[in-house]
């Protein structure tokens, strides 16, 4: 844009110089010719009418005039030509001896006059042209600058931010389209208004302090509350830049405002949520602490009286064995057994609560290895029973090794326990590749099974679907399994039928390789 403007000025200047070269010398010849013609006519007329030879006095000013015209309009070169031509013509036609180019010494002042006149006028002309030229250049520069300023203003106008300029007294002198859209006032409505009155600005600090800072550093930024034409309060992130004149006197402030109302309210929400979260976390910690001290005191204080019940019952039995009949012995025995059972329940409950409180240490765990270890342990406890184990291929998953071991050990010992009545116990362990993210493992047996009607009770704490005489246990094993799997972000469920075996399933998140995870997330 500015380039073409520059070319335009350059072309015009160039064309002017060509034109003058062609015409300037022609002008000098024509001027001198006209002067000669007029001088001859006038001389002839005067000699006829007045019988007086005033030719020289008439011709001299005419030639001088022609030189002046040439010098003024055509410059130094043509004026020299005009001086020479005029001298020749004047000498030939008007200086005695006429019709010769012979010069007397008293003609020299005339020639000097021509030359001096030509020099004076052409120097004036040169000055004039110089002035003209610089004026033209100044005009071109001004045009260029106006063009650039206009373009900058258009760019400012097109930005989304609300931008306006105000004088030091607050009067608005520029108001961009962003400001029109944000605040609702059109440019012609906004111009001339006092900014802080129009926008009902609320400042984060006293205005005097802000003004002091901007005068000191030429800049200020902060957050303001403005009111739009519709009366809506908006929060803007604002940047002020001070404009100064050549003598460093402040003349205007450019204010750029960015509406951050939505962002602020989101920030507020996030802050509030974070605070709530912190409170919740604190409450959780407190209740965890309470739970811990509860578990601790259960562990210490609940077991002691049980031990005493059992102990003193035994002592009683020992001391009074001769006095007791069989029934009394059985009663005492029941007391002892019950306290023993109560002790087991407390121990189970405590270890169950410990699982809930313990930290899970995530690592890569080979389920196959865990199963092999658990099978070896369970086989030892099975007392030489004939069990047909069928172990499928099992993957590696991510989890706490000790906890997952407990899961598998619980499921396997359940399977062993509930197949006790079978002549040949069959226990199958395998894996279903269910989905991309989860591993599904199952433990299937051909044991006592259960009624699907009560499937929801299987995983409850101390819930049992069999009588104690049939199968021993406190009913904590499957609750522990569920708690551990839930803590790993998985699920447990079971299928079965009475006397037709049971299948227990659990799902765990798969281990993804780092590369795979990156590929998925991108």
């Amino acid at each position: 844009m500015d380039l073409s403007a520059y070319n335009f000025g350059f072309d015009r200047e160039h064309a002017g110089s060509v034109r003058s070269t062609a015409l300037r010398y022609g002008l000098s010849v024509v001027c001198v010719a006209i002067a000669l013609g007029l001088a001859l006519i006038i001389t002839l007329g005067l000699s006829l009418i007045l019988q007086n030879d005033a030719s020289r006095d008439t011709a001299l000013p005419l030639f001088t005039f022609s030189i002046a015209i040439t010098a003024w309009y055509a410059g130094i070169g043509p004026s020299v030509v005009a001086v020479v031509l005029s001298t020749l013509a004047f000498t030939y036609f008007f200086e005695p001896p006429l019709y010769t180019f012979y010069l007397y010494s008293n003609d020299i002042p005339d020639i000097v006059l021509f030359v001096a006149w030509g020099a004076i006028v052409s120097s004036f002309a040169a000055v004039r042209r110089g002035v003209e030229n610089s004026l033209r250049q100044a005009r071109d520069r001004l045009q260029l600058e106006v063009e650039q300023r206009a373009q900058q203003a258009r760019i400012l106008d097109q930005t989304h931010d609300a931008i306006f300029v105000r004088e030091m007294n607050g009067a608005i002198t520029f108001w961009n389209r962003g400001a029109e859209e944000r605040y609702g006032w059109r440019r012609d409505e906004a111009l001339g208004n006092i900014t802080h009155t129009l926008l009902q600005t609320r400042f984060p600090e006293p205005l005097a302090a802000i003004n002091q800072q901007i005068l000191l550093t030429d800049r200020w930024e902060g957050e303001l509350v403005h009111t739009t034409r519709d009366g809506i309060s908006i929060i803007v992130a604002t940047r002020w830049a001070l404009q100064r004149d050549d003598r460093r006197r402040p003349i205007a402030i450019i204010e750029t405002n960015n509406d951050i109302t939505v962002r602020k309210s989101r920030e507020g929400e996030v802050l509030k949520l974070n605070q709530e979260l912190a409170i919740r976390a604190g409450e959780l910690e407190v209740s965890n602490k309470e739970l811990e001290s509860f578990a601790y005191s259960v562990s210490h204080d609940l077991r002691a009286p049980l031990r005493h019940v059992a102990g003193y019952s035994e002592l009683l039995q020992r001391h009074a064995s001769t006095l007791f009949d069989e029934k009394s012995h059985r009663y005492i025995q029941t007391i002892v057994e019950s306290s023993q059972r109560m002790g087991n329940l407390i121990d189970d409950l405590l270890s169950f609560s410990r699982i809930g409180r313990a930290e899970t240490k995530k690592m890569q765990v080979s389920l196959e290895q865990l199963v092999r270890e658990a099978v070896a342990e369970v086989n030892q406890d099975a007392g030489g029973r004939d069990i047909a184990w069928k172990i499928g291929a099992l993957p590696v998953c991510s989890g706490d090794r000790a906890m997952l071991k407990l899961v598998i050990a619980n499921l396997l010992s359940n399977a062993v326990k509930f197949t006790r009545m079978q002549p040949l116990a069959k226990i199958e362990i395998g894996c279903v590749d269910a989905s991309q993210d989860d591993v599904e493992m199952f433990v299937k047996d051909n044991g006592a099974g259960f009624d699907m009607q009560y499937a929801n009770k299987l995983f409850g704490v101390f819930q049992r679907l069999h009588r104690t005489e049939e199968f021993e246990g406190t009913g904590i094993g499957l609750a522990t399994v569920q708690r551990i799997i839930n803590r790993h972000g998985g699920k447990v469920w079971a299928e079965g039928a009475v006397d037709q075996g049971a299948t227990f399933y659990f799902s765990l998140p798969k281990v993804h390789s780092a590369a795979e995870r990156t590929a998925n997330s991108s």
Partner: protein
Amino acid sequence: MSILGRILLVEDDPRDVELTLTALDDYKLANEVVVARDGQEALDFLNCRGRFLDRPHENPAVMLLDLKLPKVDGLEVLQQVKSDDRLKMIPVVVLTSSHEEQDMLRSYKFGVNAYVVKPVDFHEFVNAIKELGVFWAVINEPPPGSIKR
């Protein structure tokens, strides 16, 4: 006093004291036992203070220590004993109801010699106490400066 005091039992619950003594009596070890009913008393005995001002300045062959005690609790007693140059050679057996891992970890950190959870079952309890008594008071050779049999 006829009590030799080779076994220091620190236990606040009189029933537990009685059951423990009953168990030790089977091996005729009951008269070897000095009972301290709280941590303060245990420290008084070990340092020959207060009630035990006149006792000979010898250490017990073993201290059976409950953790939950009035006044000075068991872990505190353990820490003081194990940081006292004169007392730290005394074998200390923590005898507690607690299965809590925290208690166990801290006890071992303070330098306990054994950690025994009292079984609820009386037979198991009696066996545990007997074995402890026999091992520490009879089989084990106590460190120099302990009360002689």
